[in-house]
Structure formats: structure tokens, C-alpha cells
């Protein structure tokens, strides 16, 4: 369901023009929760890669779908206008979305690399925790 939110956020951004749409506290928190969800799911997938318990094709395709959402979130958040009090939260959210996006790209390119999977699983778990803290 959050993907619909991401689509709506992207649409709102497009309608608001290239200057970026305005983002309130609730919408920003929802986006951070989406980042947390994506990071946690990507960590789970990376763990399966580390254990050699998943097919390379599945990893390549699924990371592509997850990456589309994380990339869209990163771009939308980077361009959105937020009230001054939320600027730091938005900046940290953009950084976390970027980390998820980068890690997903690595998994996409190396779906059979177990050592990389282990490293990315740990990193993505950390990102998920940071996003959880940020959403509070």
C-alpha cells in the first residue's frame, strides 16, 4: 500500500512543478517508514544471498523492483520542500534512501556473491534501524 503513497507523492511532486512539492511532517514520516521497510526487506534478501539460499534470477529481478521504489523515494525527498524544522530529518532520509538504493544495485549486479551478501545484510540492517529511529 505504501507504494501507492510513493506514486501519489511522485505525482504531487510532478504537479507542483520542478521546484519540488511541499512535504509535511506526516508525509515525511510515512516516507521514512517506507525507507525502513525497504531496507529491512533488502537485508532479508541479502541474508538469503549470503546463505546461498536463493536463485540469482530472483535476486536480480526483485532488487530491480525494490530499487525502483528506493530510487523514486530518494529523488522525491531530495527535491521536496519541507518546513525548516524538518530539513535535517529530510536530509537524513535522503541519505538513507540513497544507501538502500546503492546496496540494492550492488545486490542486483552480484546476486551470487555470498560475501557481499553478508556485508550488505549487516549494512542494510543498520540502515533499517536508523530509519526506524528517524521515523519516531
Amino acid at each position, binding site marked *: *500500500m*505504501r*507504494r*501507492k*503513497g510513493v506514486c501519489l507523492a511522485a505525482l504531487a511532486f510532478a504537479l507542483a512543478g520542478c521546484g519540488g512539492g511541499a512535504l509535511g511532517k506526516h508525509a515525511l514520516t*510515512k516516507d521514512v*517508514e*517506507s525507507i*525502513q*521497510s525497504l531496507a*529491512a*526487506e533488502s537485508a*532479508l*534478501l541479502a541474508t*538469503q544471498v549470503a*546463505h546461498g*539460499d*536463493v*536463485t540469482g*534470477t*530472483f535476486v*536480480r*529481478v*526483485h532488487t530491480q*523492483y*525494490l530499487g525502483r*521504489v528506493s530510487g523514486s523515494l530518494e529523488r522525491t525527498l531530495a527535491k521536496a520542500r519541507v518546513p525548516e524544522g524538518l530539513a535535517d530529518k529530510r536530509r537524513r532520509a535522503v541519505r538513507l534512501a540513497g544507501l538502500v538504493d546503492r546496496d540494492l544495485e550492488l545486490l542486483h549486479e552480484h546476486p551470487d556473491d555470498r560475501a557481499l551478501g553478508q556485508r550488505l545484510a549487516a549494512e542494510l540492517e543498520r540502515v*533499517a534501524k536508523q530509519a*526506524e529511529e528517524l521515523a519516531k
Partner: protein
Amino acid sequence: VSKVLQLALGILAAIGGFVDIGDLVFNIEAGATFGYQLLWVVVVGVVGIIVYSEMCGRVATVAKRPVFDAVRERMGFGVGLGVLVASQVVNLMTLAAEVGGAALVLQLLAGISYRALIVVAVVGLGVAIWVLPFEWIERLFGYMGLCLLVFAVGAIKLHPDWGAVGHGFVPHADTGNFMLYAYFAVGLLGAAMTPYEVYFYSSGAVEEGWTQKDLGLNRTNSMVGYVLGGTLSFALMITAGALYLPRGIDPQFIGTVALGADVPLGTIGLILAMVGILFAVGGAAIDTCLSGAYNVSQYFGWEWGKHRRPSEAPRFALSWMALLVLGLLIIVTGVDPVMLTEYSVIVSVVALPLTYLPILLVANDKAYMGRYANGRLANAFGLFYLAIIMVVALTAIPLMILTNGGKG
């Protein structure tokens, strides 16, 4: 063996109805959002669909009237036409979503382009409907869909809190967002009692030439099939409650559903899950495609049936082919199949009373049914579920608006 093979109609109707692409994601989302709290809704839905499937199977067997015959006769031409249009819209939305779902699963299995696989899925489904006899469609898609039982094994291996699972069968709402809880409850009920299941099931009873001797088979079919479908719903919700809820994962993709079998069971679990999903969504696509052709043919009094050659029932054959092509045209626009089917579930809920009321009226009519008309118990259950369906139909759209399409 032949007794087991005879259960294929109920199994296909239930698997196609309970675990199509929308239900897969809806069940997983319900579990990931509310844990095991909504398990009781599946029980309510399973009993409801058993009651009405048994009824419409009995009507089709005794009075030789599948659902849309009854709809036209009992609701009149005008209202009947409204029901036909509404049900065809929902059928088409669901068919398009299932075709997209099949292409998504094929992509996860083969890694080829999604758009190319949409065409592959449509051609495959068209060939299956054209070439295979009705009984073999049931068996192939129904029994291969049973690979989804891998989720039941996976759910056990995830070691959920069984006390909490048991508590989930008792209606309760331990949440700060009751509207969202109600939205999921309505969606799960709508998904369990989706109209195309009974269109397909009753027409299938006529296709298979059931006679009064087969009324026992009808009862067994509806019970075994839908209990199996319900079991798969439980398994998906428990998997999500144990795996995704504690991690704060909001499942959005068909790949996330499959990952639920991969984590506890490894690659073999993943492959079985994807094969099961492929045949379940393929079965649902055939259910909806044939249901659409059954409905329009029965409403206008055309010759119909898979057991007839296309030259004997040309308008029926053209109807299912046209629906398949329309489904293809919708899904190649790039619309998200998961989102499409979630909306189709909610929209179909509004059409539920107009589908189930005529079944209840005909099943109760001694002029048609003679000694096989509803008894007191069947009527009590039928009326109770009709009341539930009315409440669900009235609240579905407002809840979708109030919860922002389930976003909360």
C-alpha cells in the same frame, strides 16, 4: 484416485478465488500490518463461500441453472444487465491483474522482460483454454496450485507464537487504527467471497454434467476446496505475522510473497512458492476469463460451455477470447497488477449482494428445487451471510476512501 480427481473443481475455484495475486498480497499485507489478528475474518469468509457455493452447485445440478440464469430471472432484465456490466468490469480488472501476475512470476523465474512475458502468459492461457478439456484445466491448475502449501510448511518452520495465532481466531482489534483494521477485514471478506468463484463453480457443475447423484460430491467439493483455500490464507497471514511484522516490512511485491517461503525453506521453498503462485494466478485468470464468457452467454441465452466445440458455441468462444485480448490490452498499458487487483477486490464487494441474493432465492424455491430446496439451516446461514454481505458492500468504498486505499 478418481474420487480425489473429482475434487478438482472445488480446488481450482478455491485456489483461483482465495489465492489470486490480489489475495496473496492482501493476506500478506494483513499479516504484516496486524499480525494474526485478522485470522478470524478468513474463517467467516470460508464458511460463507462454502454455504453459497454448495447452494449454487445444488441449484446448477438440480435446476440446471447456473448463477447468471438465476440473476436474469430473479432480478429482471434491467437490474440483471446492471449486475452483468458490474461483474464483467470486475472480471476484466481481475483477469488483467492475473495476467500481469503470471508475467511477474515468470519474470522472477526466468529473468526475461516483463512485457514479453505478458504476451507469453496470454498465449499460454489462450492455448490452455482452447486445447485442454474442462476437467484437465481444473486438474492442471488446481493441483499444481497446491504447491502453495509450501507456505503452510514455511509458516510452521518460522515458529510463530501459537498462542497469539490461536487468539487471532477470536474476533478482537488490538490496534490504534480501527479504520484500517476494518478496511482489511472487509477486503479479506470480499476476497474470500469474490463473485467470480461462484460463477465459475456453478457453470463448472453444468460443464461436468453433475446430476442429483453428485450432490454429495458438490458438498465435498465446496468444503474441501474452500477449506484448502482458507488454509493457504492462514498460512500466508501467519508467515507475514512471524516474518514481516517484527521487521516493519510492508509487502508490496509478488517477490516479497515468494520471499516468505524462501526464508524458512531456502531455494526449494522459493521455487515451489513461485510455481504455486504461477498456477494459482493462471487458474484465477482462467476462472475470470471463462466466468466472463459464462455470464454474458447465460444472460443473453447463447449456447455456452467448454464441453462444446467452438463451432457449436461460437459466441461463447469469441467472448472468452475477447476478454483475454482486453485483459492483455489493459495490462500492457503498464498498470500495476497488484494495485489493480486490490481495487478490483474492493469494487467486487459492492456487487456481492446482487450475486448472492438470486442464488438464495432460487435455492429456496420449491418449484425449481423440489425436495432439494434449502432447509432451515441453509436458509439461516444464507440470510446471516446475506446480512454480512450487505454491511460489507455498504462499507467497502467509504473505508477505502477513509483509509486512503489502505495506507492508513
